């Protein structure tokens, strides 16, 4: 298995010879935390030394954010110990963490556009009636902070809306570093920065490291981790799986640990068992020079009859936008999506209703908010797709609708009491079946699904996989977003991986491992294969 690794920055040149160890600043052990049924952290541990830049790596949902929020006092752990500066600590509130010297920069750019640079930097530090530090001191601190981050050319009285998004993100970092800090936490704080700004920030972090301060950061970009981190902690499914020291850091190793040996094996087995179907049907969907955002690289691909195309990516990398563009729910920045009409001509749908007329059906991600009518009956929830077809002079043909429902309920093995019971009384998996049935009953040519297995129990998942495969073998093309890589590899023919709004890789699933997909998610692969 070879990993497509891009030309990273030369690591050796960045790393200085091992400095003397300053001892442990932070140690977290045996941390667990649940949110309802979901166990976000199981047995996480983390050690950050004085004067080191430490990276926290893990997939979406591995528990990174939860761990950082516990550290900054935003949420409390269910169990586990925190040792700060050699003493047991409890960061019960954000203020307690800040007083200890932990400052965090959140992923979202939290700024007030109408306030000045200075006021945004000191947002939240003032007491009720007075500035905590004198006006003059504030002035000096703010100027120093913006200078560190390369924004020295701005007057600190400039209103923030005049700054670019990247500069606004830097202001949130400035807000953290004007406080007296020992540990700076950066959660995806480099995502909006350009190369120059990033290098400037990294230089600053290295200066502070030399002063004995510590940094904890996450990044979706493996090259940044390789370049900056002195050590890395890898989280998987809420547990710490490894702590890598400088010498052991490589993106291949981190990705392998993030994916986990067990998963890799499972996929291996499945791909052996997997029957690779020849896809020789006609093309039904053509995506041409499509740019999802203004900054995206244009992408082109085609989907054939009976193909299952998976869409993967870390949160917000463009995979959902792509699904929405295919269903004509949203518009791309440029480029076209064309669908094969029943008459054999190609059409560019102008909106969702238009797309639906050409045979595109869409199952949204959030069943409760965007899919189902909770108070209405199972029959109604199933029926809205076929009501236009099965009504005469506006009156519904109840018998025909009930019969169609019975067929699909049987086919999908829907577990229900009465068809007139509210759909809200069904389990999550059965609700998803109703929603799928609504669209399958309309006989679409292309079915677009946004994370259809979310909140579905394991057994129902298997049933739904079977259903999707059988629909595909009878000619339906499926385009589905999923956050579950093994699921994509077992279910799909090809997986399109998105990174920063562009297609990062288009991988045939035969012979692909989850590490390959993950590497592409982190932008490590520029290999885009299309069978056109």
């Amino acid at each position, binding site marked *: 298995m070879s990993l497509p690794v891009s030309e990273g920055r030369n690591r050796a040149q960045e790393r200085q010879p091992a400095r003397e160890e300053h001892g442990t600043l932070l140690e977290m052990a045996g941390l667990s935390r649940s949110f309802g049924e979901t166990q976000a952290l199981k047995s996480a541990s983390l050690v950050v030394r004085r004067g080191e830049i430490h990276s926290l790596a893990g997939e979406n949902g591995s528990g990174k954010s939860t761990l950082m929020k516990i550290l900054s006092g935003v949420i409390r752990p269910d169990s586990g110990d925190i040792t700060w500066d050699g003493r047991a600590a409890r960061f019960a509130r954000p203020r307690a963490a800040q007083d200890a010297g932990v400052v965090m920069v959140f992923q979202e750019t939290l700024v007030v556009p109408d306030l000045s640079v200075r006021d945004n930097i000191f947002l939240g530090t003032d007491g009720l009636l007075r500035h905590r530090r004198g006006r003059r001191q504030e002035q000096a601190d703010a100027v120093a902070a913006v200078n560190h981050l390369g924004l020295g050319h701005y007057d600190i009285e400039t209103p923030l809306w005049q700054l670019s998004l990247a500069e606004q993100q830097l202001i949130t970092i400035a807000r953290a570093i004007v406080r007296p800090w020992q540990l700076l936490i950066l959660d995806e704080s480099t995502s909006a920065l350009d190369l120059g700004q990033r290098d400037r920030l990294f230089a600053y972090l290295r200066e502070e490291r030399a002063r004995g301060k510590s940094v904890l950061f996450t990044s979706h970009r493996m090259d940044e981790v390789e370049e900056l981190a002195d050590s890395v902690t890898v989280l998987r499914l809420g547990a710490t799986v490894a702590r890598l020291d400088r010498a052991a850091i490589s993106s291949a190793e981190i990705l392998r640990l993030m994916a986990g040996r067990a998963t890799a094996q499972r996929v291996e087995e499945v791909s052996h068992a997997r029957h690779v179907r020849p896809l020789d049907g006609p093309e039904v969907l053509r995506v041409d020079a499509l740019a999802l955002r203004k900054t995206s690289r244009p992408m082109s691909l085609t989907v054939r009859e009976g193909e299952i195309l998976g869409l993967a990516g870390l949160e917000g990398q463009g995979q959902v936008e792509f699904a929405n563009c295919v269903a004509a729910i949203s518009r791309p920045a440029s480029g076209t999506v064309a669908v094969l009409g029943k008459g054999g001509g190609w059409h560019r749908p102008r909106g969702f209703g238009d797309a639906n007329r050409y045979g595109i059906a869409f199952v949204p991600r959030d069943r409760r908010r965007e899919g189902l009518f909770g*108070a209405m009956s199972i029959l109604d929830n199933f029926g809205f797709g076929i*009501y236009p077809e099965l009504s005469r002079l506006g*009156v519904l043909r109840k018998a025909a609708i009930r019969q169609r429902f019975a067929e699909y309920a049987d086919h999908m093995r829907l577990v229900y009491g009465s068809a007139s019971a509210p759909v809200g*009384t069904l389990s999550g998996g059965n609700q998803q079946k109703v929603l799928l049935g609504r669209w399958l009953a309309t006989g679409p040519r292309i079915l677009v699904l946004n994370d259809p297995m979310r909140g579905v129990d394991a057994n129902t998942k298997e049933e739904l996989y079977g259903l999707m495969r059988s629909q595909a073998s009878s000619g339906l093309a499926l385009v589905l977003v999923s956050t579950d890589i093994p699921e994509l590899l077992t279910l799909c023919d090809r997986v399109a991986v998105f990174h920063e709004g562009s297609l990062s890789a288009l991988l045939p699933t035969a012979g692909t491992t989850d590490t390959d997909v993950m590497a592409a998610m982190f932008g490590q692969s520029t290999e885009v294969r299309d069978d056109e």
Partner: protein
Amino acid sequence: MVETRLGRWPVGRRIDISRTLLISLIPYSLVPILALIGAATIDGYATKSSLVSLLILSSFLGLASLGQTFTVIAGGVDLSIPAVIGMADVVITQLDGDRWPFWLAALVILAIAAVIGAGNAVASLALRVHPLIVTLGMGLIVTGGVLVWSHDSISGSVPQWLVTSVSVIGKTGPIPIPAIVILWAALSVITIFMQRRSRLGREIYATGANPSAARLALVRSRWALISAFVVAAVLAAVVGILFAGYSGAADDTVGQPYLFETVTAVVVGGTSLLGGRGSYGRTIAGALIISQLTTLLVGFGFGPSMQEVLLGILIILLVIIYGRESHVSTRV
């Protein structure tokens, strides 16, 4: 231990469902209960003339609340109903004074009402403002417009048959019941059928139940909203025309009690103000409850103020009970 728990689960669930059923039967059972209380405590409550007059009151309220049921199920509310009732009442009388044929005048009024209803829905959609605000404004425009048009001097009367159709001694052909009651019954049957069996009827529910899901389910939400408000305005105009026969004089304020009474009939029947749940059958029960309760309270010697107090208590009590029900069944 495990067995007990497993054994208790289905039982607990059955109790939940039967409680839901029980709560949904409250409005329907209140109607005969109030009738029995009336018959037992008030002399002459059960006589034919008393019952017919009760039915006439209920018909006015039931017809005015018909469209309100649609707008509430669609997720809105129509506050311009009283203004449209007043408009129809004044205009039909005025046009009669101007020697217009009755049917032509009635058709013109219904057409104006349809335009008002469509205007409510279109303005709400186009401006992305809740119908509550749009219809409040529309009500003021209509009331003001009528006063400007009629110059405060309304003269004319309505045909005698219209008066008979809403009077206690009225007959509908061979049936010894006034026409308004028959009209209400006929429209009720059509409405209930339409809500249950027509595509548009179901789409009105879907629009109110979950607007964003409705869009992705290709439900014709705009059309659903427009038809709900057109029905509300047209039925309000019908009530206004009938009122001209009932009161015998034109009065633009005649519809005012129907602002709260239509909403009350809808809510007391058990249709949720959040939209998507309920039915006209429930509103019929609601209308019968309100008119009976009013009659009873008058019979007990309560003045109008005390009637309002007690009606308010009833609404709050029922909404508390219904709130529990919806909590169980809208859980997704």
